[in-house]
């Protein structure tokens, strides 16, 4: 167990090193960083001074190690555009994104697995076929179209729910949550559904496929031959075995949620990190882009680490060795 996690950690560190190198190179390749920092009318001397201050004339490796050092302390410098520390900006906006992703993940997992199991068991029923067809439409709908449609229907037309933004936040000091008030929940419903829909359908289809696959296995046949009840076969035997491969994919899917939160946050003006990223791209605000990249990679790596450990917990074959 210990070595397993250690090995995973080592891999994660490697991945982070490469990602940080990529994000470091952003600084150097996307335009001249000095140009991005000074006004149009800065003199040549000023530019040289800044170059020197930033150490841009040092060898690349020195610069990279400095970047790494700063990064490890959470220091990504100041945003070119709003001149504030990037780490602060990210942490201010992190709760919004994480809460959105969290709620979406719950929706996607609960509904996705539930319907997946249903359609996997009742393979031939009309409801299953209906769900499957709808799910295929779900995979075919770009997130932004879903968002626009939901806003149009529920906010503009029916006026049930707010069209955008995050409201009803409660500041817990270290975390600004919108999950404690009715207003907050009202605001999160539409974006969360929008964000979850695509992943939900993916999970649904995956669970179903795995379920069907497991249903074909010998041990299910043997369980049948022992006369076990449908319930026991479906849930105790089939579902649990289905979950092993599903967990991996779910890890990736939660990562996908983080990625697609960029779109959802844009459509719903959700004040999270994704919205900040897309604005940063518009303004070529490299420090934010670089930090966001590292941050997303870190989340991904963490999620995958958790998934690996879950894997370990769920599957005795890995846990106990062969």
């Amino acid at each position, binding site marked *: 167990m210990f070595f397993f996690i250690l090995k995973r950690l080592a891999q994660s560190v490697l991945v982070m090193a490469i990602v940080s190198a990529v994000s470091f190179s952003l600084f150097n390749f996307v335009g001249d960083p000095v140009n991005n920092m000074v006004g149009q009318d800065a003199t040549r001397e000023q530019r040289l001074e800044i170059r020197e201050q930033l150490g841009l004339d040092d060898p690349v490796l020195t610069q990279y190690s400095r970047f790494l050092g700063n990064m490890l302390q959470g220091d990504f410098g100041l945003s070119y*555009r709003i*001149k504030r520390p990037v780490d602060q900006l990210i942490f201010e906006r992190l709760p919004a994104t994480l809460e959105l992703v969290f709620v979406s993940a719950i929706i996607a997992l609960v509904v996705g697995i539930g319907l997946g199991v249903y359609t996997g068991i009742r393979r031939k029923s009309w409801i299953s076929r209906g769900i499957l067809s709808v799910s295929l439409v779900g995979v075919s709908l770009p997130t932004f179209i879903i968002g626009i449609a939901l806003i149009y229907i529920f906010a*503009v037309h029916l006026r049930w729910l*707010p069209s955008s933004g995050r409201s009803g936040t409660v500041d817990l000091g270290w975390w600004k949550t919108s999950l404690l008030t009715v*207003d907050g929940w009202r605001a999160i419903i539409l974006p969360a559904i929008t964000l979850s829909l695509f992943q939900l359908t993916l999970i649904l289809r995956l669970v179903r496929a795995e379920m069907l696959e497991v249903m074909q296995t010998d041990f299910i046949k043997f369980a049948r031959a022992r006369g076990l009840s449908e319930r026991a076969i479906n849930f105790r035997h089939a579902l649990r075995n289905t979950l092993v491969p599903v967990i991996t994919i779910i890890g990736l899917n939660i990562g996908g949620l983080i990625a697609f939160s960029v779109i959802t946050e844009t459509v719903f003006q959700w004040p999270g990190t994704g919205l900040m990223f897309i604005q940063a791209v*518009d303004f*070529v605000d490299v420090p934010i882009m670089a930090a966001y990249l590292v941050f997303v990679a870190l989340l991904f790596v963490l999620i995958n680490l958790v998934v690996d450990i879950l894997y370990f917990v769920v599957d005795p074959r890995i846990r106990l060795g062969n």
Partner: protein
Amino acid sequence: MQFTKLLAVSVTALTVASPALAENVLRWTSQGDALTMDPHSQNEGPTIAMNGQIYESLVTRDADLVLQPELAESWEAGSDGWTFKLRQGVKFHDGSDFTAEDVVFSFTRANHEASDYKEQAKSVTSVEVIDDYTVKLTTDGPNPILPNQLTSIYMMDKGWAEANNVVAPQDFKAKEETFAVRNANGTGPFTLVSRAPDELTVLAANPDWWGKGMFPGNIDKIEYRPITNAATRVAALLSGEVDFVLDPPLQDVKRIETSEGLSVKTVAQIRSIFFGMDQGVDKLRSSDAEGNPFKDAKVREAFNLAIDKDAIQRVVMEGLSFPTGMITSPGVLGNTPENDASYGFDAAKAKMLLADAGYPNGFSIQLDCPNNRYNNDEKICQAAVAMLAKIGIKVNLDAIPKAQHFPKIQKRESDFYMLGWGVPTLDSHYVFSYLLDGEGSWNATGYNNARVNEITKAITTEIDIEKRTAMIDEAWSLVKKDMPYVPIHHQVLAWGLSDAVDIPIAADDAFRPRFAVMK
């Protein structure tokens, strides 16, 4: 079925919303958030607008853009500057008094190397304290329009700035954010309660404001939530989440007007939209034509005639624009009906002119266009592309965010570009010095007319208003003939409002909460 019922119940429960507060809360939105709360750091629309609710300047304009006293009660011109009498008994939000020292400090700060307001403040060479409530602003020469230039130079508290180590605006060398970026201490009608950039900024009425009772406004609290996406912004108004949208897209104006409980206010804006053509370079960068066709006035005229400004007004702008023949709006000193008349639309003649100039088959060129700055900016450019195509000009459109567009113009790197120009001073000098003077910092056309340059210089010091106006007219006539630009239209401002609130619309697009009334 039970589930459906449950869903319905829970949705109903959620929809019974809460804000039933007694106070008047104005929730509004526009496209962009202020970049910083530092009043001297960024000379940029939303930043000025936001800071203008907290900070105040010596002189301000009312909704009709007439100069009004704000922190100065009166002012008069002298031979080498202006003397301002300050309002007495004004307090900053932290309780300290506003005095002449603060004026001196604020001008010094606005003139600091890191300030973005140097252009407005630079003619003030020194500020003298006459007494606690009198200051003299010495200028580098006679400056007839100095008060016009001061409307966005906000006054800061010297003591607060020193205590918080923000005596200078944050500059690009800074490695850390300064205190003033997220904290504000002004004299204005509203105080900063909380600020989450790009998310939500909450302002509360300042109970100790000097102007209490002098203005009709009755807003207790302002919640500002920027919404970048235009459709989302309108959706917020339509769904009742905000009371006021500063910048609804024009195509939605009709929808807002016809919606129950919503209305639209429009006013001609002091901002003109036009295309610039670079006649300065010897070879156009993006064109397949030999040399620079724009050097030939016929080509410039052809461009002017090829663009159907009426079609743009009707279809692209939903009628919300005034087609024009000059690059500054009515209301600005120098705009005359003759010069304001459009060049008209005559594609056949344009084609002929091109042929005369030696381009019977036209040529190709890149049009640089912002996509997030002006009303329907990108769409106007697209329409122009189609119109120019009809006279054989193949236009490649590059529509990009303003942050990348403007540097191209300032660096004079664009052959053909869209620009809009507002005139906060309401005086043509602001247009000449930036856009028409051969050295003008936003003049990327390479237009360099000696007489225009001369007039630009002369009117800075000419105090005889009649003479000055005549000179301005002369310059505009020259420009009308030389056609360095293709004027399109003057923008019309449209604000979307809920019926619960009444806000006077102003041609400078500034939201003046002190006049806002909630019913």
